[in-house]
């Protein structure tokens, strides 16, 4: 029987230089799933995504994608392999136009980018506002439009796995709703999504399962519904502490101090 998991991370250790960030991360994302990764700043969420695509080298453990060990992949190969990262901060080509950014998204597909025009149409169908901005440089877009362009650029590579790093960062609630609304459409198109998000409520509402990361390891996992019902998660990430347990200095109290 084939492995239902499209992505499987096993005992992953990684870090920057001599500073370790990930201490044995285990997680998997099944085909067609939307999985959310939550956790405090510095827990290693972004580092995990950056390690999966090869910006950060794994020092121990394995990353298996679609049955192949890709632990030593480099980013320019990962996208060819079918993994597209929408990075934190978007990393668009600011001085280049919206259309050029999207064309660059299809760069990895090389000669078989014949379906390029229809892919552009697909992105415009998802984010109609980009259609009116094709000739504008990416740096002139609003934050929400930039995020849409970053996702559109990633989709142009026709990935099977989409990694989204903090797509809601700095955006208005209405724009966040629009962006998360597209996740369902993408899933119907056969995409698998691993999402890192600080807006835990929105993220869990739009995903099937979730993992909670704490200081470089997975602290908790479960279906999104279970996690949303969990007291720890509610307390720390869902703002329940606002009403219940705000510490004297405005920081949330930890689980033990409840």
């Amino acid at each position: 029987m084939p492995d239902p998991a499209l992505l499987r991370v096993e005992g992953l250790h990684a870090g920057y230089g001599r500073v370790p960030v990930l201490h044995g991360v285990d997680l998997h994302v099944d085909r067609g799933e939307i999985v959310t990764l939550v956790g405090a700043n510095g827990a290693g969420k972004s580092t995990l995504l950056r390690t999966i695509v090869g910006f950060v080298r794994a020092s121990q453990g394995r990353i298996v994608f679609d049955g192949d060990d890709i632990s030593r992949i480099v980013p320019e190969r990962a996208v060819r392999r079918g993994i597209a990262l929408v990075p934190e901060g978007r990393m668009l080509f600011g001085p280049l136009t919206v259309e050029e950014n999207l064309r660059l998204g299809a760069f990895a597909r090389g000669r078989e980018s014949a379906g390029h025009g229809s892919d552009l149409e697909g992105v415009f169908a998802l984010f109609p506002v980009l259609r009116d901005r094709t000739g504008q440089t990416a740096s002139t877009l609003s934050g929400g439009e930039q995020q849409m362009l970053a996702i559109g650029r990633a989709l142009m590579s026709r990935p099977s796995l989409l990694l989204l790093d903090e797509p809601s960062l700095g955006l208005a609630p209405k724009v966040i709703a629009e962006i998360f609304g597209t996740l369902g459409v993408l899933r119907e198109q056969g995409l698998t999504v691993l999402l890192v998000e600080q807006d835990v409520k929105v993220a869990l509402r739009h995903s099937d399962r979730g993992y909670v990361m704490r200081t470089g390891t997975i602290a908790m996992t479960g279906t999104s519904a279970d996690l949303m019902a969990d007291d720890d998660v509610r307390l720390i990430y869902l703002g329940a502490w606002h009403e219940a347990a705000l510490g004297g200095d405005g920081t949330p109290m930890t689980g033990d101090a409840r």
Partner: protein
Amino acid sequence: MGAAQLLQFTIAGLKNGAIYALIALGFTIVYASTGILNFAQGEFYMLGGMVAVWALRTLGLPLLAAVPAAVLVTVGVGALVERLALRPRRAEAPLVLIIITIGVSMLLQSLARHLFGPNEVALPPFTAGPSITFFGAAIERQTLWVWGLTAVALLVLWVLYTRTKLGLAMRATAVSHDSSRLVGIDTARVVMVTFALAAALGALAGVAVAPLTQTAYDVGARIGLKGFAAAILGGLGGPVAAVAGGLVLGLTESLSAAFISSTYKDAIALVVLLAVIFLKPSGLFGRAGREKV
């Protein structure tokens, strides 16, 4: 000074300016894709002229073959410089890489001295014949070649950057290596192509001007300085600014020779370089800030 004389100085200025423009372009495209200044750029110019003379005299190739052969050989050298001298140290700070290019420049110069000898040499003009008279000023036929080849190089570069996938990858790499790798661009290869292209521009300048001024193993440093000054004048920005910087520098030199003294002609480039660095570091056409996303 008569109008014809002034025109004569202007023509000389635009001729040197075209050469400076090609060298400045070499500096600019390498800077854009790597963030480093390649001080071996002048050696590409030297190699263009010297290899052409060597191919003509030693190998006995016809001029028509010696000229493109010299450009091709230099392109190979440019790619090798990137691959062997710079790529192994790509993770180092820009200053380290810049110092490596200075070392490469010295190496290429002493290799050229060993291979081609210490003497000054010259190429015959690409087309023989008397100068053309233009409103009382004389234009050597080779000067027309310099302008023509510069124009062709600019056109090819423009088509490459705006109409091809490689050009788009080069522009993307100039914005950000990480973003480029994310969409699947092999940035190491793009950087190598950029060095090869910069070498082609330098060699083209060297081979086009070799019939007008003699060339030797040690001409690289001087032209490298001129081209660097022109590139700084253009703000190390786009290709158009680099070409404008080259032409402005050539004209400034030539007209200062006309009105002040030709003794100080070479010092002009340095004065211009220092003035731009002190007064307007973003270059003549530079904006105050850099765009960012």
